[in-house]
């Protein structure tokens, strides 16, 4: 009969022993009571005697391996006995627990190390997608003490950093200076100024690279594990990440889906990357087209229209809806439309694209404008009809994530229907803006980490980078009325603002909507130079629940554009200083 040799109980406090030396080798004859190996513990080195007489048939645990006491280290058989089957494949790493011992499990107390984590899962949070939603969530999670795994198939920073917010702002900044000089008669030879498109693109690329390095450093400093590869769900707690044909499995207690979105295409106007472009290709354009058709009059559409218009192209915006930037306040829409048109952009609303056919040098676009067929042509067509969530191949169906249309369905805590799985950013399609994604990311993480946080979209601003800019938060006038608020409007034109005049940017206004009972600010809409920065104080006011009177009490530096905000707040009370009564 085969006899198991174990590391014996070596006294009352010893839990582990290291096999120091085998005194007998496999196949050798051993006698009962004869020392067969030496074992070292934290206290002693001792010989262990053979429990039986026979052949040392198999040594399971080799020298210099430490094992818990009672681990089987060798098998002794009778002279002619074969090694029983169950011991054949036994390996030291997986040495089965010894004959069930009644002893209480050895416990070791890691005193003085309360931060030592005993986790059955590798990560606390895994985040699919390292866009501004994902990486911000990762950093906050790490700040709160979570072990974070950040997975990105593409580039750190996602759409915003690589193909969206940041690169376009780099362009707009260059173009702004360019047009200022070009359209001015102050500068000598001003009208002859021209733009070096190649350099403009390479500056954009530098900006993007700098920012990516910055984000990468931030992630490092927070000890976030960043891996590149395509992540998909195996189950709700397991993510497989593949890159270059190799796959690795990670476990996480929570997963945040932050896979973002991609440019949407129309069936009759497929993006080909050459003539029909998405935002990605637009940004690396090598020459300035003469005629550009922008399909879609949303945020992206008007921004691209602005860029190309300023670069000297003839731009036509084709919008299916009755208005461009439809979510904005009507006065803003009207104001911006007027200004864009003044800048030379053609805006066609209520116009449906019927087809877009690339020819040799230009694209023919047929539209249906209020039942009338029109033909347009341009060298480039820019698709700005919106973005669709990126959920391809990440196995959402497999784990049973509920969606709304193609967007992942979440509640105000960013929880999906599956426990421990959250989603943020464009993939949930709530407010497809970078800063909304970040805010959602923080809400998701804080909920995971045990705080109770809900998102309030009413306090998240929208920004449009046209010339001039549009910024808004909260309800539009129409919405507020529809909700039954008893409201009043405070409004102040930049024309009456000293700084705006001095800057040569007198267009636009600040419009504040507040209700009468408490003076609660319900919405702010700014059309004008630097509107996106000016909205900041209004956001603060709304967040801290300042009343419109509070906003009006702020003393501003002079001259500043922000005086216009104060004035608008005062106007709400009929107390604007720099506004004549009849305005």
């Amino acid at each position, binding site marked *: 009969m085969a006899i198991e040799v174990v590391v014996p109980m070596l006294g009352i406090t010893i839990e582990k022993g290291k096999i120091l030396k085998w005194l007998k080798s496999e196949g050798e004859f051993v006698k009962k009571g004869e020392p067969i190996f030496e074992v070292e513990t934290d206290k002693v080195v001792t010989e262990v005697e053979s429990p039986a007489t026979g052949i040392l048939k198999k040594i399971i645990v080799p020298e210099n391996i430490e094992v818990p006491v009672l681990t089987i280290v060798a098998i002794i058989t009778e002279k002619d006995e074969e090694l029983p089957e169950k011991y054949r494949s036994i390996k030291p790493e997986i040495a089965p627990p010894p004959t069930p011992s009644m002893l209480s499990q050895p416990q070791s107390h890691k005193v003085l190390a309360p931060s030592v984590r005993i986790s059955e899962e590798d990560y606390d949070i895994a985040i699919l997608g390292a866009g501004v939603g994902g990486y911000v969530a990762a950093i906050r999670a790490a700040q709160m003490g979570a072990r974070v795994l950040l997975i990105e198939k593409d580039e750190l920073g996602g759409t915003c950093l690589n193909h969206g917010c940041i690169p376009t702002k780099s362009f707009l900044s260059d173009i702004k200076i360019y047009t200022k000089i070009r359209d001015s008669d102050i500068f000598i030879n001003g009208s002859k100024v021209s733009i070096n498109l190649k350099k403009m693109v390479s500056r954009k690329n530098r900006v993007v690279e700098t920012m990516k390095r910055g984000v990468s450093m931030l992630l490092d400093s927070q000890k976030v594990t960043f891996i590149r590869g395509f992540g998909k769900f195996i189950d709700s707690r397991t993510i497989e990440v593949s890159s270059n044909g190799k796959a690795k499995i990670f476990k996480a207690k929570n997963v945040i889906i932050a896979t973002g979105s991609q440019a949407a295409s129309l069936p009759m106007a497929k993006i080909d990357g050459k003539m029909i472009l998405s935002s990605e290709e637009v940004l690396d354009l090598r020459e300035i087209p003469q005629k550009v058709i922008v399909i879609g009059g949303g945020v992206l559409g008007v921004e691209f229209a602005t860029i190309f218009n300023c670069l000297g192209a003839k731009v036509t915006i084709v919008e299916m809806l009755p208005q461009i930037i439809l979510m904005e306040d009507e006065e803003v829409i009207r104001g911006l439309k007027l200004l864009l048109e003044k800048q030379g952009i053609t805006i066609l609303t209520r116009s449906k694209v019927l087809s877009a056919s690339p020819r040799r040098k230009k694209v023919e676009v047929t539209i249906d404008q209020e039942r009338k067929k029109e033909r347009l042509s341009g060298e480039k067509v820019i698709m700005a009809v919106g973005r669709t969530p990126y959920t391809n191949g990440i196995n959402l169906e497999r784990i049973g994530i509920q969606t709304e249309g193609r967007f992942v369905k979440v509640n105000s805590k960013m929880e999906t229907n599956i426990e421990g799985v959250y989603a943020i950013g464009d993939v949930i399609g709530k407010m497809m803006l970078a800063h909304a994604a970040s805010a959602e990311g923080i809400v998701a993480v804080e909920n995971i980490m045990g705080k109770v946080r809900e998102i309030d979209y009413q306090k998240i601003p929208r920004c449009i980078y046209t010339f001039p800019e549009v910024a808004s938060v909260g309800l539009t006038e129409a919405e507020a009325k529809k909700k039954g608020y008893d409201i009043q409007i405070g409004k102040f034109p930049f024309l009456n603002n000293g700084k705006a005049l001095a800057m040569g940017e007198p267009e636009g206004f600040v419009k504040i909507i507040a209700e009468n*009972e*408490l*003076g609660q600010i319900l919405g702010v809409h700014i059309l004008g130079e630097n509107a996106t920065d000016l909205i900041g104080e209004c956001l603060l006011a709304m967040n*801290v*629940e*300042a*009343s419109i*009177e509070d906003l009006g009490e702020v003393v501003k530096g002079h001259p500043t554009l922000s005086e216009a905000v104060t004035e608008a707040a005062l106007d709400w009370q009929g107390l604007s200083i720099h506004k004549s009564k009849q305005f």
Partner: protein
Amino acid sequence: MMKESEFPNRTVKIRAVPAARRRAEREGIDLSPVEGSGPGGIILEKDIEHFRITQGAVEGTLVTGKIHASSLARKLAEKRGVPIETVEGTGTRGRIMMGDVIKATEKPVILIKEKGIFGQTIPMTQMRKVIAKRMAQSAFTAPHIYFFTDVEMDELVKLREKILGDFEKQFNVRLSINDFIIKAVALTIREFPMLNAMVKGEEIHVMPEINIGLAVAMEEGLIVPAIPRADQLGLGKIAEMRADMVGRARLGKLKLEEIERGTFTVSSLAQYDVIFFTAILNPPQSGILSIGKTCDQLALKEGQVITKKIARFGLSVDHRIIDGTVAAAFLQSLKKRLEDPTFTFMHL
């Protein structure tokens, strides 16, 4: 040596953790209406906090110091009549936000909603528990005996109507029939001290002061604040105290003392179509007067059919110490006082 049961039982024993007691004492909060959320209903410190927020603390005990609230929250609280200091803030550093004020105003609404759903099990509120216990105790320890009489209210009603206007000018309070009844009961008790007695162990304590309790119905149950020395107070003072206490009872702002001092209770359902009813004694009192609706009844007067305003009065007494004849005589005397109010209230 006295047995434990013979010690005067002043208050219902309240279980509270020491820190809760310290807090309550420091802030002058009476623990009896506080609902405990700890094991076995023991009162925790947070319960006091909660109590302060939801019920409002007993007068003059509000936290001092600056209130941390947003501008809009302040305004909203003012508009809705919510004392801002009772609102729990959820903003950064406990700042009170609009949502908090809204929540605070919504609370009672939620309470009512929870009440009447069929098939739902509702845990007893602390108050309900106390009431349940006291009613059961009363019904099962004091053998009740009931007496009824019809009281002609015509004169009293007339008297009230006559003096109502002047009275209101003088005392700034609307005089009610109950005020007369309270006074009349108090005066009658002077003649029948046993109706002002309490059984304690094997002793009968005839209480030195005549404090007439008036049952006030509230959302959560009945509460009986008492008007002290009603026999010695003028009608004006009685009316004033009655109005004040009924008002505060509804706000949950009565002091324990006001509830506990009663020696005899008057319970009226006159505003309902209830002709008469029997009442259970409010322990350890030995008498309670129940008053039904005042109805017009036909009667013969000198051969003429006339109408009379009749209210049926019921008297429940503790038969252990009050004999039927005493109770009957008391009721008789009371009836007389009310039917001839000019005389009764002449000197007031």
